[in-house]
């Protein structure tokens, strides 16, 4: 009897590892790569984005994972550097990830996207907005952020619908970004039937813009949209007040910075509108509210920028695609995302993607600078 028990026990010891060996094989984790700047100039953003992704991954795993498998993040730091980006991209490919979230800045995303494309991996960038990224014909590359083109459309609609402007001016600073945004805005403004009566650029190295402002003041504009950076934006606000001009200023997302108000002076900045991506706390969908609450509960701070939220959104899209297709094949996932419509995103409804992989719709909102010098969400927003 004792021998039988011992034999059974022995058999069990010998056989169990076989089952044990089988079980992890069935439920091997789904590996998802993260390529972000965790050191260097963009470390603050990169770290916050990683926290966001980790939050969602842990929630998913706690709820049983996807397709009965756990999610495993493979994290690499590209420091925002193009050279380092290609190296870590290769490392992620070698680690056998099915999808990558990253990178933060366009100059790191660009070289990495070539490597992911060759390896046939699904690649979603949460925050790189350079237009040419999606012009290489990569079938498995997507953005969850929006191009400046969308901001131009939003700004034009805001000025027409909310401000009731008919005759507007657009001022840029000749930088690639500001000029691009200005051109998009001009195109959409004209499509919407507005008259762009003033269109010009300042030299950002200058300090005195009174000649340009005097000219703008004489043009009888309903609103003037400045697409450059906050240092010049602040000077423009200050000097236009010094000249006694009553201009309705609207500024682009590069002016979404408290230094704008510091440079302009609170009394000169008050009443200025800024078109920008919203702060996570100002996104008005239940998914966003839940994300902000969960983030606060876990890390004891609010998600500080929209890019943190966009990183969570990138994971959300991958998770949704895996759930819907019951597959972890990047090809199947990419084809699904191309067709996908009306997903309940964390950053608001996801209408879908165009054939290049750029997200449709817009997330931009208008903030207004209050009398006390704070950016508050403007109560009136244009139609979506």
């Amino acid at each position: 009897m004792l021998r039988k028990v011992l034999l059974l026990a022995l058999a069990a010891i010998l056989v169990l590892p076989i089952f044990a060996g089988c079980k992890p094989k069935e439920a091997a984790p789904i590996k998802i790569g993260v390529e972000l700047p965790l050191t260097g100039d963009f470390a603050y953003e990169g770290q916050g984005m990683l926290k966001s992704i980790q939050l969602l991954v842990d929630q998913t795993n706690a709820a049983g994972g996807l397709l009965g498998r756990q999610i495993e993040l493979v994290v690499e730091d590209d420091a925002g550097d193009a050279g380092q980006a290609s190296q870590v991209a290769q490392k992620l490919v070698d680690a056998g990830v099915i999808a990558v979230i990253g990178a933060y800045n366009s100059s790191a995303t660009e070289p990495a996207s070539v490597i992911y494309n060759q390896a046939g991996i699904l690649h979603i960038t949460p925050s790189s907005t350079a237009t040419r990224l999606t012009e290489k014909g990569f079938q498995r590359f997507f953005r969850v952020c929006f191009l400046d083109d969308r901001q131009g459309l939003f700004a034009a609609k805001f000025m027409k619908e909310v401000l009731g402007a008919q005759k507007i001016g657009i001022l840029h600073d000749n930088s690639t970004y500001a000029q691009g945004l200005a051109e998009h805005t001009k195109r959409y403004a004209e499509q919407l039937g507005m008259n762009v009566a003033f269109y010009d650029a300042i030299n950002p190295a200058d300090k005195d813009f009174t000649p340009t402002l005097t000219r703008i003041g004489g043009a009888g504009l309903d609103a003037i949209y400045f697409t450059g950076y906050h240092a010049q934006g602040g000077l423009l606000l200050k000097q236009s007040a010094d000249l006694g001009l009553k201009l309705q200023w609207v500024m682009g997302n590069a002016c979404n910075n408290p230094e704008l108000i510091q440079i302009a002076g609170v009394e000169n900045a008050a009443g200025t509108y800024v078109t920008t991506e919203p702060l996570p706390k100002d996104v008005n969908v239940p998914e966003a509210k839940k994300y902000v609450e969960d983030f606060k509960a876990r890390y004891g701070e609010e998600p500080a920028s929209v890019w943190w939220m966009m990183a969570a959104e990138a994971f959300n899209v991958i998770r949704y695609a895996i759930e819907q297709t019951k597959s972890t094949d990047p090809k199947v996932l990419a084809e699904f995302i191309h067709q996908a419509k009306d997903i309940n995103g964390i950053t608001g409804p996801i209408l879908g993607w165009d054939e290049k992989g750029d997200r449709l719709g817009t997330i931009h909102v208008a903030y207004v600078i209050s009398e006390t010098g704070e950016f508050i969400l403007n109560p009136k927003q244009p139609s979506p």
Partner: protein
Amino acid sequence: MQQLLQQLINGITIGSFYALVALGYTMVYGVLKLINFAHGGLFMWGAYIGLTGLSVLLALLAQGGPGMIFPIAVIVIVTIAMVGVLIERIAYRPLRSAGRLAPVISALGMAFILESLARNIYGASWKTYPPGLVPAGRVALVGDVRISIMQVLVLTVSFLLMALLYLFVYRTRIGTAMRAVSLDHEVSRLMGIDVDGIIATVFLIGPGLGGLAGMIVALYYGSFDFTLGWIFGLKAFISAILGGIGNIPGAMLGGMMLGIIETLGAGYVSPQWKDVIAYMILILILIFRPTGLLGERVAEKL
């Protein structure tokens, strides 16, 4: 018409800044035939020293107001003047007999050192003067043409300083000695003039004025960073050449002209084209008057 008047006011304000800084270039050139590229850096340091002086005073007195400008201005003038003399002593005087190229390179080196020091000590972010130091408000001149109290103050102070400097150089004994030194160092020495002392005086006045101009510019625009010296230094240098370098009334005229031409170019053509227009005119003037607008009329340079 009203817009033209407003643009002229804008232009004269910008021009008076250029002129104030140009004085420093022109004075040093007058006595040393040296283009003191460090002048833009001293100008920029005036803005920073003013800010530091202000925070120290605010901490000591625990109250602020328009009256604060005067003690700060004195602090700025004294500090920057001393730095100017120090730079002359360590970077220019040892090279005085080394030909013309070595001191210019030394001056360029000083310019880089001053800029890097400012960036390292104060950081690269924008600095702002607290509001309320200068009474705000505008006066309507004709119709919609307005001039701010700040502009009135800036213009008054600039013209006053330029007039005082002119009187000093042309009506006092030290001024006469300066003009003598600018003609010939050796002969001046034989006449019993303390040439080193006179050069040191020039490096006291030029940078002192430049530092004050830096503080005024920073107060006027409200904000600045460590690159402030480059653009104003360059424009002021051009103003000095345009007016006739070494010539004090020339520096004033050159600054005003550059400011007004730039303003009209930006106001009536396009801000993108204003530099093209301004420098085309500059080149034309130099082709026809290579010594600058007032370069010939006054025989003795400074």
